[in-house]
């Protein structure tokens, strides 16, 4: 079957098998490998991307369900050579180690801050509670999202100095 999906602002019209999972479409067919495949059962969240404006676990979404919709992945967070505040926050607060859960965490973090620009620690913990990180013990992820909240102006533009690299 043919699907039309906008991924990170680019329109893709692709022939797919009806059973193709969105995570495999994004990774293997479109070649955006920032979104990861970790568990198959919607438990780990390494595959989180946005379907329209909502974070979803793409290992349990059929590509066909994304037909006519917009997808946003981690590769779209950096805009005009400028990292998103959540990306800067994860670097500043050491919110990542192996990096495997990071893209999904970043997409959830961005979605949280879009809706709640100044979340409490508990709200942050609840927002990422559907995703597993095996390296950080979560504390630095919470700090990273808090950093991003503290270092974003209301329109999303940054009010802090450049991050290294």
């Amino acid at each position, binding site marked *: 079957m043919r699907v039309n999906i906008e991924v990170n602002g680019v329109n893709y019209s692709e022939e797919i098998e009806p059973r193709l999972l969105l995570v495999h479409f994004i990774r293997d067919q479109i070649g955006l490998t920032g979104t990861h495949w970790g*568990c198959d059962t919607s*438990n780990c969240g390494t595959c989180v991307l946005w379907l329209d404006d909502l974070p979803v676990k793409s290992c349990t979404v059929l590509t066909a369900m994304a037909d006519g919709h917009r997808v946003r992945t981690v590769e779209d967070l950096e805009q005009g050579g400028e990292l998103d505040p959540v990306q800067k926050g994860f670097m500043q607060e050491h919110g990542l180690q192996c*990096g495997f859960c990071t893209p999904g965490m970043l997409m959830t973090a961005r979605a949280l801050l879009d809706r709640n620009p100044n979340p409490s620690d508990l709200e942050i913990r609840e927002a990422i509670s559907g995703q597993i990180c095996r390296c950080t*013990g979560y*504390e630095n992820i919470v700090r990273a999202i808090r950093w991003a909240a503290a270092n974003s102006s209301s329109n999303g533009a940054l009010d802090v100095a450049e991050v290294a690299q």
Partner: protein
Amino acid sequence: MTTTENQANPIGFGRMLRKEDARFLRGKGNYVDDLNLPGMLHGAVLRSPYAHARIKSIDISAAQAHPKVKAVITGEILETLNLAWIPSLSHDVVAVLATDKVRFQGQEVAFVVAEDRYSARDALELIEVDYEVLPPVVDAKKALDKDAPVIRDDIAGKVDNFIFDWESGDKAATDEVFANAAIVVNQDMLYPRVHPAPMETCGAVAYMDPIDQKLTIYSTTQAPHAHRTLYALVAGLPEHKLRVVSPDIGGGFGNKVGIYPGYVLAIVGSILTKRPVKWMEDRSENLMSTSFARDYHMKGSIAASADGKILGLRVDVLADHGAFNNTAQPTKFPAGFFHVFTGSYDLMAAHCSVRGVYTNKAPGGVAYACSFRVTEAVYLVERMVDRLAQELKMDPAELRMKNLLRPEQFPYTSPTGWEYDSGEYPRALRLAMDIAGYEELRKEQAQKRAKGELMGIGISFFTETVGAGPKRHMDILGLGMADGCEVRVHPTGKAVVRLSVQSQGQGHETTFAQIVSEVTGIPPEDIDVVHGDTDNTPFGLGTYGSRSTPVSGAAAAIAARRVVDKARIVASAMLECAPEDLEWEKGRFNIKGDKSVGKTMAEIALGAHGTVELPEGVEGHLNAECVYDPPNLTYPFGAYICVVDVDPATAKVSVRRFIAVDDCGPRINPMIVEGQVHGGLADGVGMALMEVIAFDEDGNNLGASFMDYLIPTSLECPSWETGATVTPSPHHPLGLKGVGESATVGSPPAVVNAVIDALAPYGVKHADMPLTPAQVWQAMQGAPYRTDLAIQ
């Protein structure tokens, strides 16, 4: 402290943001499953649904007829290549594909190579295997029963499921201490089977170039050099035609030390099809077939005087090794470093015995950041000390303080022969108690108990045993556990460091640049770290057992010192003075007494590559290397305190606070060290409260997906409180000890001790992990259950 602004990078040690983050944050990491080589095919493994069954026949004809299938491989085909069985890491063999029997649920039976991922899986369903189901051995305690089915009838003359007996310590002396002790406390405990479950599962892309016959294997390996040599030895492939690449790895925790059948199958698939073959397991395959951890049934006894002086410790272990003995550890140590079980205490005598048995479960045993079974050792001693405190009605902190090794006892030789390098134990425990507000917590607990509320405070003091290891004692399949490092300074003063170890998230690209920076004064941002590619790095045994910093970190420091030594000679030639007339100031050599005359490392590097006339016998350029054979292990340590609340109505445990004081010697990058500790603490909470791989009576794996194998999320983990003391290692060139596994080793007993403490009003003395609400409820009723079997 939270840092809210970017800081200038340090020269050498200090907080520095990670270099590797730049790609991970952008979704540009390069993990094995991200590889997409031209013409690449996809492999999938057919696995056994049974724990124990004889294979009567395998029909692959329908799978072979699938239009997208390029190859179907069975054990029978591998036998013709002499690859059906490969040596294990513990003097046993492991089946790549089953030929005679399947011996655990999830064992590899056949391999399909197809044009795409989905077709390969489709074809698995077309393979027909006729099994004769056999009774399985599920309960390790029944593995040696006379009527137990013999699992390993592939071994000539094998009539039981016995693997080994091993012991350490002085049994007679220990018996005497126990015979004369005022107090003896016995406690059986299980450290159940758990799984490292890194977020990235295991996988490989293999490509045998049909023209130059060079085989490149990109794989999720923590030990690329060791894998290369093992592939050469096992498959008879010439080692110079083998390249193993460990690209970005999505967490290891020991899960990625061994060679899995899937890697070998990807190689065979590539040889047969002459195309690159990718094999990537899914989560269930990871949990069911790759290296598990622990599975130690321990009978502990502790002896003490009436006033709480610990005198002796002994333990008898039944170790469940699964269907093949494939634990990854130094050859001489079938129980790993478990015999460091006397922990952090000054006692007179100790003895341990370990019996390994086969069961119809996946092989493995040494994984999940365990430092070669120091996790089990620390759990044993820290639970026993708490049991003793219970019997003595003594505060567990006071009991520990009374028995901890004192600073003047170091270097300390333990009753089982370990030489602890350095330690200031009471200082660390006191600091943890101060951060926790220990005395106040006890008061709060007393008030809560009076109201019927269940609050617990648990302490754990651990001594880690890392940095394996001295070649005279330690090898893996004959390969000595020394590691290499090369430092090359370019003419413009920028440097490249090549490591034998590699990162699975620890941040080597940053910390090893900082190590070389610390010694040479070259800024860390001017130092590139190359790792994980056997064609481009020196030989070494890899990253596990917290060994990168103590072993390769020492190699890097010494190589960097050799660069500085050479730089002195070059600088003296440039300044036309004697080398001894120069003094080192981080990053430059000056004429003694005159800082205005000198040469920077960049100037010296250019000189070394230029036309400066060097003394007779001194070669140009500014490079050095080192192969480091550590004189001893390093012994990081720490004091942990956990505070829990237990809901008396639901038996649910909530971790309110966790205080961790770690001493790993000087910290290369405190931010990264703290991150390593945080991750290990989450592991501890997971193992203590949630994680277990149990089996039902048919040998079905009951933890085979993330629906069933529960890993802590952000809601189960508290906000960690950390502290540090610094006791350098006297034998490491920079005093470093390593920290990767400290918190995983040290934290589980703190959580369990806290829960048992909370349950004191119910008279609970012990319950095995994981302390799920069901298990805690059962313990409150006086009947905790066995967590390794299906709940009866």
